[in-house]
C-alpha cells in the first residue's frame, strides 16, 4: 500500500469518526496535520510522475486539431497535455509541460501547440507531429491565454499578474514588446480575418471607490502589434473567454456583473450577480450586454464561449452551475433588434430576457471550463475541471452523448471535494453564487462589498486573497470570526448562500481545501529570496525603530510589529486611523501581507487604490505606522519590500 493510499485510508477513518461526532475543531487540527503529506508543497520541484503520486488531471482547456482528428486537453493539476483521438477518445500520448498550465492554442497550421505555464512563467512549444516539447520560452508573470497570428510571425501571450500581453517572435520566442491590457489580462482571441487580437482580463481596472467596476476588451492590431482600442465594459468585473463568429461580425465574451455596491441582503432578483455575455461587432453595433440568468435559476460563472460555424449556436460553459448554456444566436440577434436597447447598453437586469434566446441548459460535470466544437460542429467537448472528465454534447439534441473519463486517482480526496464545494453554486439560493464567484480562480475579485449583517452601507469591506490564509485567524476585517469553519460555515450560509447549509463533512472538506490552498510563486522575489538594494532599504524601513529625525517609533507603530511573522500579521486588532464614518468600529485586524502586490485595492474598505495611497492619503496622523517622514523614493523602497512578502 502506498503512503498516499495509507493516508487516504486514515482520512476515511477520520471522516467516519467525524460523521459520528461534532468535534469539528479537532478534525480540522488533525486534517491540517495529515494533509500536507498528501500534497506537494507550493514551491515543490519537478513533479514525481510515479503512478502512486498521480494527481488529478483537472482538465481546464481543450482544442481540436485542424483536421479534427485530435483533441488536445490541458490538464492543469497533472501539468500535462493529454492528446486524445477525437473519435475513439483513446489517449495517444501525454506530454508533460510546466507548472500549473492555463492557456493552450494551436498554430494556424496545427503543427505547433502552445501551452502557458502559470507558475514558472514559461510557454511550452509542442511539436504536434512528434508530440514533444521542442522549446520552453520565458514570458511574463503568470502567462495565461496565448494565440499566434495568421502569418506565424508573432505570438501573443496574456500575462495575468503583469496585466499585459507579451508579443513574442513566434519562431524564436524572443520578446518584442509588452502591450498593456486590463488588470489580470488572461484570455485572448484572434479575429477571423487575423487582423486583430482581443484580450480580456479577470480583475476590474482601478476605479473610484464605491463606483461600479470597469473592465475592457483590449484590441490589438496584428500588423503593427499595437493596441488600437479599449472597448469599455462598464459594470463588469471578471471577464473570461471570448469567441468570434466565422464571418467576424459577432464577438461574444463571458463576464460577471457584480452587485457589490448594493447591500447584499438577499439573493433574490440577481441580488449578488448577473452573469452575462457582452456582444460586439457589426452584427450588434455598439457593444451590448445580455443576461444568461433566469428568474429562478442563475448561470453562475460563465467561462468558455464558442460560436458554431454557421452562427446558429453559441455555447457557454457555466462553471458554478455545472452546465452548458446553448443559445440560438439568430434568436439572440432578433431579440436585440426587436427590444429597445437600454441606455446603459445592458439588459442584465431583465431576468426574463434569456427566455428569448437560451434554448437549453445542459448538465455536465463539476466546474466545466474550456470547450471546443468538433470540426463538423456536431459534437461539443467540455472540460469538467473538477471531475476529470470531458462531456461530449450532441449539438443537435443538446444532450450529453458520452463522457470521457480521464485517467487519474480513483475517488475524491478531501481537497478535491472541498474544491468542488468551493466552485459549485448549488448551495446558494437558486444557484446564484459560490465561493469562486468572488474568489476568482481561488484568489479575489478586486471589489469591495456591502455585506448585510453590519448594516446597510456600513462596514464596506475589501475582498481578500485566500492563499496563505491558514494560520492568520481571526478572520474578517474586524476579527469577528475565530476560524475558517466559522468564516466559511455559519457566516457564509446565513449571509451569502441564504438557502442551504453545509453538512459537517462538506464543511470539513471545504476547510481543508482552503487551508491548503497553495501560494503562487512571488514574482518580486529574487531566486534564493535575496533582496534587491531597494528591497533591502524597504526592509530596513519596515523594521526601523527610529524615524528619520532620530525619534524612537513606539513598538506598536512599527510596520514590523503588526505585520510580523511569516505571513505578515500578528493576528491582533489595531486602530490605524482608517476608520470611516460608515464603519462600526475602528479596530481592525492586521491583515497578512501574502502576495500583497496583487491584491489592490487596499485597506479594509478598499479605499486605497495603491499601496502608496495607504500612507500618502490615508495615514495623515502616522497611526498606520510612522511614514510621514519618508520621501516618495523611500515609500517606493518600502513598497518594493512589501511586494516580496
Amino acid at each position, binding site marked *: 500500500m502506498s503512503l498516499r493510499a495509507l493516508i487516504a485510508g486514515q482520512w476515511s477513518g477520520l471522516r467516519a469518526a467525524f460523521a459520528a461526532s461534532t468535534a469539528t475543531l479537532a478534525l480540522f487540527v488533525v486534517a491540517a496535520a495529515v494533509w500536507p503529506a498528501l500534497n506537494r508543497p507550493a514551491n515543490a520541484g519537478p513533479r514525481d510522475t510515479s503512478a502512486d503520486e498521480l494527481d488529478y488531471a483537472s482538465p481546464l482547456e481543450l482544442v481540436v486539431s485542424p483536421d479534427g482528428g485530435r483533441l488536445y486537453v490541458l490538464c492543469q493539476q497533472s501539468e500535462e497535455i493529454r492528446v486524445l483521438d477525437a473519435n475513439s477518445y483513446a489517449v495517444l500520448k501525454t506530454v508533460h509541460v510546466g507548472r500549473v498550465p492555463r492557456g493552450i492554442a494551436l498554430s494556424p497550421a496545427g503543427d505547433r501547440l502552445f501551452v502557458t505555464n502559470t507558475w514558472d512563467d514559461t510557454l511550452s512549444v509542442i511539436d504536434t507531429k512528434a508530440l514533444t516539447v521542442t522549446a520552453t520560452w520565458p514570458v511574463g508573470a503568470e502567462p495565461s491565454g496565448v494565440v499566434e497570428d495568421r502569418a506565424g510571425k508573432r505570438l501573443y501571450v496574456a500575462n495575468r499578474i503583469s496585466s499585459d500581453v507579451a508579443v513574442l517572435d513566434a519562431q524564436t520566442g524572443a520578446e518584442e514588446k509588452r502591450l498593456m491590457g486590463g488588470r489580470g489580462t488572461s484570455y485572448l482571441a484572434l479575429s477571423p480575418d487575423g487582423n486583430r487580437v482581443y484580450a480580456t482580463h479577470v480583475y476590474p481596472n482601478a476605479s473610484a471607490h464605491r463606483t461600479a467596476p470597469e473592465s475592457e476588451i483590449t484590441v490589438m492590431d496584428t500588423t503593427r502589434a499595437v493596441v488600437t482600442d479599449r472597448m469599455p465594459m462598464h459594470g463588469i468585473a471578471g471577464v473570461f473567454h471570448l469567441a468570434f463568429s466565422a464571418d467576424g461580425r459577432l464577438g461574444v465574451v463571458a463576464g460577471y456583473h457584480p452587485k457589490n455596491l448594493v447591500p447584499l441582503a438577499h439573493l433574490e432578483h440577481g441580488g449578488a450577480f448577473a452573469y452575462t455575455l457582452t456582444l460586439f461587432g457589426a452584427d450588434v453595433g455598439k457593444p451590448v450586454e445580455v443576461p444568461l440568468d433566469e428568474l429562478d435559476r442563475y448561470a453562475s460563472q460563465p467561462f468558455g464561449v464558442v460560436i458554431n460555424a454557421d452562427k446558429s449556436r453559441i455555447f457557454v460553459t457555466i462553471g458554478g452551475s455545472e452546465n452548458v448554456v446553448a443559445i440560438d444566436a439568430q434568436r439572440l440577434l432578433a431579440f436585440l433588434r426587436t427590444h429597445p436597447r437600454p441606455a446603459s447598453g445592458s439588459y442584465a437586469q431583465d431576468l426574463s430576457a434569456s427566455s428569448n434566446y437560451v434554448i437549453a441548459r445542459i448538465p455536465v460535470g463539476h466546474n466545466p471550463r474550456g470547450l471546443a466544437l468538433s470540426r463538423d460542429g456536431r459534437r461539443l467537448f467540455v472540460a469538467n475541471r473538477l471531475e476529470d472528465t470531458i462531456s461530449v454534447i450532441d449539438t443537435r439534441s443538446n444532450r450529453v452523448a458520452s463522457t470521457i473519463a480521464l485517467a487519474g486517482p480513483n475517488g475524491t480526496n478531501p481537497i478535491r471535494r472541498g474544491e468542488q464545494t468551493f466552485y459549485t453554486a448549488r448551495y446558494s439560493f437558486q444557484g446564484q453564487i459560490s465561493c469562486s464567484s468572488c474568489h476568482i480562480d481561488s484568489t479575489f475579485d478586486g471589489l469591495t462589498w456591502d455585506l448585510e449583517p453590519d448594516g446597510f452601507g456600513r462596514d464596506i469591506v475589501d475582498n481578500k486573497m485566500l492563499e496563505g490564509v491558514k494560520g492568520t485567524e481571526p478572520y474578517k476585517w474586524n*476579527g469577528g470570526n475565530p476560524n475558517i469553519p466559522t468564516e466559511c460555515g455559519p457566516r457564509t450560509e446565513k449571509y451569502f448562500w441564504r438557502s442551504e447549509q453545509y453538512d459537517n463533512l462538506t464543511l470539513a472538506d471545504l476547510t481543508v481545501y482552503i487551508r491548503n490552498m497553495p501560494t503562487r510563486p512571488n514574482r518580486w522575489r529574487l531566486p534564493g529570496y535575496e533582496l534587491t538594494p531597494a528591497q533591502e532599504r524597504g526592509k530596513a524601513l519596515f523594521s526601523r525603530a527610529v524615524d528619520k529625525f532620530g525619534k524612537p517609533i513606539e513598538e506598536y507603530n512599527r510596520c514590523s510589529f503588526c505585520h510580523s511573522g511569516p505571513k505578515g500579521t500578528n493576528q491582533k486588532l489595531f486602530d490605524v486611523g482608517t476608520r470611516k464614518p460608515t464603519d462600526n468600529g475602528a479596530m481592525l485586524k492586521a491583515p497578512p501581507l501574502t502576495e500583497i502586490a496583487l491584491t489592490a485595492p487596499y485597506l479594509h474598505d478598499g479605499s486605497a487604490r495603491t499601496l502608496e495611497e495607504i500612507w500618502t492619503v490615508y495615514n495623515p496622523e502616522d497611526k498606520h505606522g510612522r511614514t510621514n517622514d519618508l520621501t516618495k523614493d523611500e515609500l517606493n523602497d518600502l513598497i518594493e519590500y512589501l511586494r516580496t512578502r
Partner: protein
Amino acid sequence: MRFAAGFPGIAGLLLGFSALCGPVSAAAQTPFSDIVVTAAPVYEPLAALRGQERFPKGAQLLLVHQGKPEPLVAGFAATADANVSIDGRSVLFAGKQAANDPWQIWELTFADHSLRRLIASSADAIRPFYLPAGRLVYAQRTASGFQVVAAGKSATSALAAIDAAAGATVLPLTYVQGSAIPADVLLDGRILFESNFPLGSEAGNHLTPEMFLVYSDGSGVESYRCDHGAPRWGGHQLASGDVVFTHGASLARFTSPLAHEAPVAAPHGEFGGAIAETAGGDWLVSARAGAGTHYALKVWKPGTAAMQTVLAQAGLDLVEPVVVAPRTRPHQHPTALHDWSYANMMALDARLSRAGDLKVLPASVRLETLDAQGHAVVTGTAPVEPDGSFFVKTPADKPIRFSLLDQKGAVVRQEHGWFWIRRGEQRICVGCHTGPERGSENQVPAVLLRTTTPADLTGVNPVSSAPNKAAGGN
C-alpha cells in the same frame, strides 16, 4: 382494526370502497409507487381561503397500493392533506378523530403504522408539509383566518423525536388579514402558499387566489410571479423546478425563464388541486369531465393527448395525490434574522414598477399598518432620494403598506395589498412592485451616501441615531 369510523357519512362511503369501486383495470399495473389521495364527497378547494371547510362532508386519505385503495389510517372521522416525508418513510396529514374535533396534524410511519399527533391546538391545523431538519409547516386557524406557521421540536414532544436538533417553538410565517395556506415546499427552501390577491386583502365574494413565497422563517414574502389576475392555486413543484398549478379549471405552470405563467396543453377536462409527479415524470392529476361530476385520479404523460384513469369512485372526489417515495430534500434555509423588534427595508428606486415606471420623482414614502380593528394607521413618512431610493425602519410581523407621495402629500402610487417584514429582517426591493424579473442595478443607493440610519417609520420610536449594527463577527 385498521379503520374505525368516527364520521358516518364519509366513513360509510369508504368502508365499502374497495369492494364497490376498485381501481380501473389498468391501475393494477401502475408503474409508479404507492399513492396517497384524499377522497371526499364534496371538495371545495378554495374554501379555506375564506376560512371555511374544504371538505364539508368529510374526507379520508386512501393509500393506493398496486392500484388498490384502502384507508390510510384507522380511527379518524376525517383525514386529508397528505405529505410524504423526504425519505418516503412517513406521511403527515390533517386529521379529526371525532367529527366535531378541529383538524390536527398527525404523522403516520408506513413501516409499522405507528401514529403520532404532532400538533394539538384548539383550532384547525391543516395542510402540513415537511421541512428539512425536523420541522414542518402548516396552516393554523386564527382570528384573522388561516396563517402559515412552522413548528420545531418544542411544539410537541412527539415532534422532538423526529430530530432532536430541530428548531424550537411554533413560528408564525404569515402576518396578513385573511388566510394563507401552504401549498408546497420548494427545492430552494421557500414555502409556496396560497392567499388572496392582493395579499392581505379581506376575503370577499370576489377573491382571487394567488400564489406567494416565503422563507421558512417568515422573511422574504413576495408573489411568485406578478402577472396577477387569473385565479391560481394548488401549486406543486416538479423535479424540473417548474411549478404546476390550477388556473381556473385548467393547468398552467410557472417556469424559471418566464415572468408570466405558461399554459399546460393538457387533455380536455377540469382539473382541481395539486398534482403529483411520478419518478418517471408522469403527472398524477385530479380531473373530471365537468361541473356536476367528480374528480378522478388520472395519470398523464406531459405532451401526450390522453390521460389514463388510475382510480375513480362514484360519489367521491379524489384529489391532492402524493407519491409515496423518497424525494430530493429542499434546501435548508439558514435564518439570518437579527435579534431586533423591528425590521429595515430599502427600496433602490421607488420609481420602478411593473405598472409603469414613474416619470416624476416621488417626494416621500408613507408607511401604514393595521390597528387591532383592522383600520389603516400611518406610522410615518420618509424622504425619497433623487435616485428614488429610501431606507426605513418598519414595524415587524404585522401588515404594512407603502405609498409614494408627491410634494403636496398626495398619493402618487400605492400598494394594492399588504405584506410584512419579519422582526430582524433587512430587505431590499428593486422598486415598488417591479416583479421578480427585474434585477437590481449596481450602484450605491443615494440614501446610503447620506445616512446609514434608516428613517424610523415604526410609529413607536423617534428616529434613532444609533448605527444599525449587528452584534458579533458576522
